[in-house]
């Protein structure tokens, strides 16, 4: 092994392995200190969490159910990152896509499975893609920075979706504003129906498999196709990409659209999967923003993102269950830990980067 490939290996191990692990460990340590200060044994707390998630197939299935949406919003961040774009509008793209997919599901009710199910996913993708493409277009045409426009688009989406549901789709007798329920043809089958060792009636559903397939397809798209090459080239150096004949403007809009499309499918897990089968805005709040943490923890790699999403699902599902055993520790402890993971991660990554640079200078 020559010194260059050894350096690459060191880079990979430090940035993609050590740094995320350090961030996770520090978050658990701080979480543990807080739990101790409330008079609870943190080891008992976390081991209960572990057994709630991994102790049974039902636990695993619940964890997967909680993890699935994070994959999609995280992919929204990370896909845009590949082209050097910062999409923090997953929250809004998720809402617009979610409403679109619910609309298809309760409108074209005569269509059978899997046609309606697939159409719902396409609608979710397109809704999110539209909401993502607008900031891309505004960046290309008018130079508006996508960070600010995507933030603003989040709040426009929240108000717009609220307005549409409340004034056009909602039955006033329901109390809580939500859409009508989607038709059976749109239901995402529970994993229990497909994979024999999953217990029947669990909420983890085919959207988790869709996530895994999309992760694979994205890797192929980025690494093996011309479009993927052009997207990566735009991200690495827009000037030389343009010099090489790549139409950066169209690639920027397209990247933002695909990125938004990922987020647009995030709520399919809840709406199409086993459960209430309608769009309920208040249930999804924050998944778009947390996706930023998941994407970075997964080091912007589709496979890494699956692992990071599972960690977030582990924390969320664990927090819901562990309350019964330790009612004095509010379940928001995991939200704090998720935030700590993100902030520690960015700092550790910069330290690792600095260390590698110093190593490189020495030769």
């Amino acid at each position, binding site marked *: 092994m020559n010194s260059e490939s050894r350096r690459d290996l060191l880079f990979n191990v430090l940035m993609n392995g050590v740094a995320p692990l350090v961030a996770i460990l520090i978050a658990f340590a701080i979480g543990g200190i807080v739990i101790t200060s409330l008079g609870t044994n943190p080891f008992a707390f976390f081991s209960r969490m572990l057994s709630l998630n991994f102790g049974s197939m039902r636990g695993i299935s619940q964890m997967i159910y909680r993890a699935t949406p994070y994959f999609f919003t995280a992919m929204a961040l990370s896909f845009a990152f590949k082209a050097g774009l910062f999409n923090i509008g997953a929250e809004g793209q998720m809402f617009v896509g979610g409403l679109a997919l619910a609309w298809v599901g309760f409108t074209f009710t005569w269509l059978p499975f899997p046609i309606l199910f697939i159409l719902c996913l396409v609608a979710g993708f397109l809704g999110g893609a539209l909401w993502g493409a607008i900031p891309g277009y505004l960046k290309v045409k008018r130079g508006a920075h996508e960070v600010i426009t995507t933030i*603003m688009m989040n709040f426009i989406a929240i108000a717009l979706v609220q307005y549409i549901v409340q004034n056009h789709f909602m039955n006033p007798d329901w109390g809580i504003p939500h859409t009508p329920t989607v038709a059976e043809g749109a239901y995402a089958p529970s994993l229990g129906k497909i994979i024999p060792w999953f217990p029947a009636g669990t909420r983890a559903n085919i959207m988790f498999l869709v996530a895994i397939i999309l992760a694979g397809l994205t890797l192929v798209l980025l690494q093996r196709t011309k479009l993927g090459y052009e997207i990566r080239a735009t991200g690495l150096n827009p000037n030389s990409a343009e010099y090489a004949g790549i139409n950066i403007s169209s690639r920027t809009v397209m990247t933002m659209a695909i990125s938004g499309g990922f987020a647009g499918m995030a709520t399919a897990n809840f709406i199409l999967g086993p459960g209430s089968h309608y769009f309920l805005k208040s249930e999804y709040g924050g998944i778009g923003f947390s996706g930023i943490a998941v994407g970075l923890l997964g080091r912007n790699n589709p496979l890494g993102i699956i692992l990071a999403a599972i960690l977030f699902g582990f924390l969320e599902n664990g927090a819901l269950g562990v309350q019964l055993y330790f009612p004095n520790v509010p379940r928001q402890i995991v939200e704090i830990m998720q*935030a700590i993971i993100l902030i520690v991660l*960015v700092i550790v990554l910069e330290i690792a980067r600095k260390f590698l640079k110093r190593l490189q200078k020495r030769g």
Partner: protein
Amino acid sequence: MDIFTISTLLATIRMAVPISLAALGGLFSESTGVINIALEGIILMGAFAGTIITNATGSPLLGILMAVVAGIGMALIHAIASVTFKANHIISGVALNLFATGVTFFLALVLTGGSQISVESTLPKFLGISPVIYVTVAIFFLSGFFLYRTRLGLRLRATGEHMAAVDSVGISVTKMRYLGVLISGALAGLGGGFLAIEQANFFTKGMSAGRGYIGLASMIFGKWTPWGAAGAASLFGFSQALQFRISIPFVPDEFLQMLPYLITIAVLVGAVGRATPPAEDGNHFIKEG
């Protein structure tokens, strides 16, 4: 239906105070080139800390001061991450917003068992309105003077326009940036303290409700100037005040809610005049050699 009444004016001012303080905070931070989208979380933290300390000590004044301190504390984390460790400003901001949402909800449950805490005492009103409103107006006058007429203010702004030039005359870019970010935390924290103690008279989870981002929008709409930001925040405060007072025919509340964000995008795409952010916004200072 009467829109332009004294009570609407007072409501507008009350709504505008946290927004304008967040906007001015964003302005101080970005004048040194550090983007601060943690304003949202800082307001929330200020609101929480203010409420807890007011109730614990019986002094709303201490509560307001604690809100400022909590804001500075949050800003310090942002400065350490994004200035010292050169982390991405946006990511650090997102992390702090997530943190504030979680930690305030968590502590509210631990300390009181509920997610809403009422504030037990408020500052004595002066001529019918909260003294914090006068302080806010004074802060705007002082900031205008400080940023454009004092040596330190000019240095802060120079840092946001050209870091290397600032460094070359022996001024520490790091110190300037820390100062800008910490001032922004103090201001947004004060806004949060006002929101809980003086305006709502309670703390509830997630009560910042986008005010930090509307502050950011005001800063942009106001073209990165204190008076522009104050004007924009007043306009957005007015639209918020309207939402609670009347329903305008053919204009749903939700469209009033969208207004600040739509206007910001319009400004950014140049439809309503051009706004130019500080040249070094979001950049890191890396000393050559």
